[in-house]
């Protein structure tokens, strides 16, 4: 793998390539459990989760921060895990879709997505749910228009938006009451 990348970059560069980076130790607290990885600095948080630890619930859609399928919570804040390096998140607490439920007890947002049939193919759903949990944490969405705007970073190719919005409204109501 490393040789492949060196070759690929070497063909473009006129300057001498830097010495290969040694894998660094990266400590990530994922869903309450500590993981220590030896990974190269160019591994994204998304790839670390999926390829190095096996949390495949977080999806790779566009890998360019445009679709939101890779949304996770870092210290409670939603971000695109494809647009950050795992090494930059050393020591931080990451919550993925696998970490939202308590055993068999689903997170209210997961329940609401089922109640409202808020998915079709399901590929964007982990990102939608993590994003929706982040949206509730932020507390800036006061009505349907706000929810639409503040969920615009999550694309659903099946077009389940109406039901996704209904699920979020349900949870928002539960939080307020």
């Amino acid at each position, binding site marked *: 793998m490393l040789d492949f990348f060196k070759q690929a970059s070497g063909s473009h560069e006129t300057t001498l390539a830097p010495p290969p980076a040694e894998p660094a130790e990266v400590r990530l607290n994922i869903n309450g459990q500590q993981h220590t990885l030896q990974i190269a600095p160019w591994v994204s948080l998304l790839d670390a989760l999926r390829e190095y630890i096996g949390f495949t619930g977080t999806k790779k859609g566009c890998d*360019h921060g445009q679709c939101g399928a890779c949304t996770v919570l870092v210290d409670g*804040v939603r*971000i695109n895990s494809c647009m950050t390096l795992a090494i930059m998140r050393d020591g931080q607490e990451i919550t993925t879709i696998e970490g939202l439920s308590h055993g068999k007890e689903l997170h209210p947002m997961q329940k609401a997505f089922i109640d409202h049939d808020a998915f079709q193919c399901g590929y964007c759903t982990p990102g939608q749910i993590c994003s929706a949990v982040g949206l509730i944490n932020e507390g800036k969405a006061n009505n349907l228009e706000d929810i639409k705007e503040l969920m615009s970073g999550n694309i659903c190719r099946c077009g389940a938006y109406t039901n996704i919005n209904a699920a979020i409204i349900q949870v928002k109501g539960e939080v307020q009451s």
Partner: protein
Amino acid sequence: MNTFSYTRANDVADAVQNGSVKTNFKFIAGGTNLLDLMKENVERPDHLIDLSRITLKEIEDTADGGLRLGALATNANTAYNQKVEERYPLLSKAILAGASPQLRNMATNGGNLFQRTRCYYFYDLATPCNKREPGSGCSAINGYNRIHAILGTSEHCIATHPSDMCVALAALDAKVNVTGIHGEKVIDFADFHRLPGDQPQFDNILEPGDVVTSLDLPKNNLSKHVTYLKLRDRQSYAFAIVSVAAALELDGDVIKDIRVALGGVAHKPWRIKSAEIALIGKAATVENFKVLAENLLADAKGFGSNTFKIELAKRAIVRALTEVAKAI
């Protein structure tokens, strides 16, 4: 993505020191634009110097009644900061018009200044681009240029600057605080970004190793009549075709202060102070706003697919100012 080595900077001095001994390096903070460009092989740094742990995240009052925004405060924390919302709502509106919530949660105030153009040819390694590869030519001038610049262009580049936040910072006369190898300096926002000229590879006037530490917003009376009008191909999460940061200070219907900056039309936020000053003391009327619009677009030049932007920008200016004049 090419391989690279990684260093985490402990503080600004550490960042500057690391920058002074490395070549072909990039500073990374939020990474939301840089990593995207690295995945496309548009950027191929040998080293990344991570600024994200440096404690420049505060938003605090300055002695002269303004506000200092830490370079590493996130765009989201800045837009939703109570002092920013109350005293500089134009900035909040502009930030929230850009990107998505997830990206705003990562992107930093300093990093926002370093966004690179979204010109499709800049991103496409198979096509010539003077910004990506100096001297190779500009594919946009005679290509598909719907999103490209109409002001301040050169025969070498017609790229636009993509930031919304920067349009508001230009309107608000922000100052950029920088620390580099030769010490600290303060740059007027209007001077920070540059026009393409014959060196479109340089987006701004910084020297290698310079670190933006904070942005200062001077005190003003422009919190009541402001809007950020962003015209784009979809209603959310898209770059501006044309955007207008507009702010008025009114005494009755007489203009006491006025700011108009345009996004999506040039290599940097577009503002002409003399056109604003000409309206001070005059009535806030559609006729006067039209004069300002004509002055701002006087030197505009279309390249075919983007020629519609000239008229669009004029109408957007008049609409934005008319709306804010009404909002009393």
